[in-house]
């Protein structure tokens, strides 16, 4: 009887345990995400220098819009997006080959995945040597008689961004392969068996079973990589070129970092941070809308 009474009593009051459990996480989030996001908006309307409190309206945004380096940086982020379809395609091809369990597939899988666990700054510095004028890439070109193609890969304003992109693809490819392989492993065997009975060849099975089944995970990978290209490439650029030559390989994160910590122009750095945040949010909303549309048509 008393157990029942206490159960009733417990139910009638609001149980505070869940709130106590989430409280530390919520506090940390408010501190590390909440406060900075609010502050970066406010700061973007304040005087660009360290002098606090002077509202300058949209002047910081105006400065940014008129700054060719800003557009160069944003353009470079947009250029990097080119890499997303490329690496999605290559990752798919590699995953499909490995999924067939060709001879040595376990070793290939490990090797292909390895770059993804390496630290970006380390990869960056290593590729500075590989891409140097007397680096490995040029030496190989010279050795096979293509010395005319030898370039200063990271020193040329036109080649620096494609070169950086190749390094990003180098590292991120393994992530895609792993994602796709993990999803493939959970495709039901009966689908393939039924297809085999129906006489479907290797290509038909790929086209009509594997790829459609991978759609969700491919979308996920594409979204993650779009976000990476827009807002997670600082370490690549910083460790390889520092944004150079001149501003040829600057990206938005580097632009924010320079204005924030080298030029001490808080308002301007904040304005660009706000623009970056808005761009990412738009991307996410678009993705959610697309996905929402898909689920209405009966996908998963």
């Amino acid at each position, binding site marked *: 009887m008393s157990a029942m009474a206490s159960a009733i009593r417990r139910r009638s009051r609001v149980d505070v345990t869940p709130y106590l459990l989430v409280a530390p*996480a919520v506090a940390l989030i408010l501190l590390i995400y909440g406060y900075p996001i609010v502050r970066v908006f406010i700061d973007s309307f304040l005087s660009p220098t360290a002098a606090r409190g002077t509202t300058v309206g949209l002047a910081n945004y105006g400065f940014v819009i008129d700054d060719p380096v800003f557009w160069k940086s944003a353009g470079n982020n947009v250029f990097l997006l080119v890499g997303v379809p490329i690496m999605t395609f290559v990752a798919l091809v590699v995953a499909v080959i490995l999924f067939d369990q060709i001879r040595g597939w376990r070793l290939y899988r490990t090797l292909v995945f390895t770059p993804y666990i390496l630290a970006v700054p*380390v990869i960056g510095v290593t590729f500075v040597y590989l891409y140097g004028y007397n680096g490995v890439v040029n030496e190989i070109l010279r050795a096979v008689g293509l010395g005319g193609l030898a370039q200063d890969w990271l020193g040329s304003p036109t080649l620096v961004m494609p070169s950086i992109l190749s390094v990003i693809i180098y590292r991120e490819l393994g992530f895609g392969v792993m994602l796709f392989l993990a999803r493939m492993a959970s495709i039901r065997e009966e689908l393939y068996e039924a297809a085999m009975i129906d006489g479907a060849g290797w290509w038909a099975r790929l086209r009509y079973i594997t790829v459609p089944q991978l759609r969700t995970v491919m979308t996920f990978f594409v979204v993650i990589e779009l976000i990476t290209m827009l807002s997670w490439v600082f370490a690549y650029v910083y460790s390889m070129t520092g944004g150079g030559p001149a501003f040829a390989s600057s990206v938005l994160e580097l632009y924010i970092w320079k204005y924030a*910590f080298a030029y001490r122009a808080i308002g301007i750095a904040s304005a660009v941070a706000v623009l970056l945040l808005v761009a990412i949010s738009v991307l996410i909303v678009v993705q959610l809308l697309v996905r929402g549309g898909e689920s209405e048509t009966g996908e998963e």
Partner: protein
Amino acid sequence: MSALRRFLSPAGLFKQALMVAIAIAAIYPVYYMLETSLKTREAWTADQFGLPLPPTLDNYATLLADGRIPVWFMNSVIVTTASVLVSTVVATLAAFAIARLTFRGRTFLLRLLVALMVVPPAVLVLPLFLGLQPLGLTNTYQGVVLIYSGMLVPFSVYMLSSFFRTLPVELFEAARIDGASTMRILRSIVVPLSGPGFITLIVVNAMWVWNELLIALVFLQDDQKRTLMAGLTTMRGRYAINEPLVMAGMFLGVLPILLLFLFGQRFFVRGLVAGAVK
């Protein structure tokens, strides 16, 4: 026999050739780091491709004698351990509530956490710096540990709560009937049963903190406080003309994660695909 025939078919040979090419490209930079680091500067200048024969550990000895890398290494160990510890504890509590308890705002909280996962650190770094500076938290371990822990929370809660949801619900009901309190259930049932989930999360989070650069550069500028990654990026300027020495430093930078990966590959894979494949 048919396996061999498939291997020798044009398609089979093409696949093998493609995979060999991709695998070599993937591993070559690591090989290059190691190979270069085992050469003297003179041997490297004479031939950067040849095997390091005889190999020399001079570069590693120089780096250890210089003393910076061991200090940076320890800084990274401290910062990584503390951040992973704090975020895991905080996330475990929240994830348990989200996965197994009902309360107002639960769905909203989970959605918010998912949204926060995509906020770029570059957006947060300046306001955090301005906010933490007056508190004397810049150039301190506590400051970066606080930031890293906070940044790890959204993914950690998300991952752990999906893991906790896979635990059989009957266990919770049985424990409730036996009169176990919520905290008791968390301590005696959820945590002991979630070993694989925790290992996966710890591996992924540790790797993220170990490899992080932007926050480390901004918040730990004192040479004695630098993390290994931030320190390594200063090496190229300092030893620009001594490639083998720089490569030795780089190799030391990836070695711990590389070793972890070789022994626990499945945890890396599981953790890194956790967000996408249910």
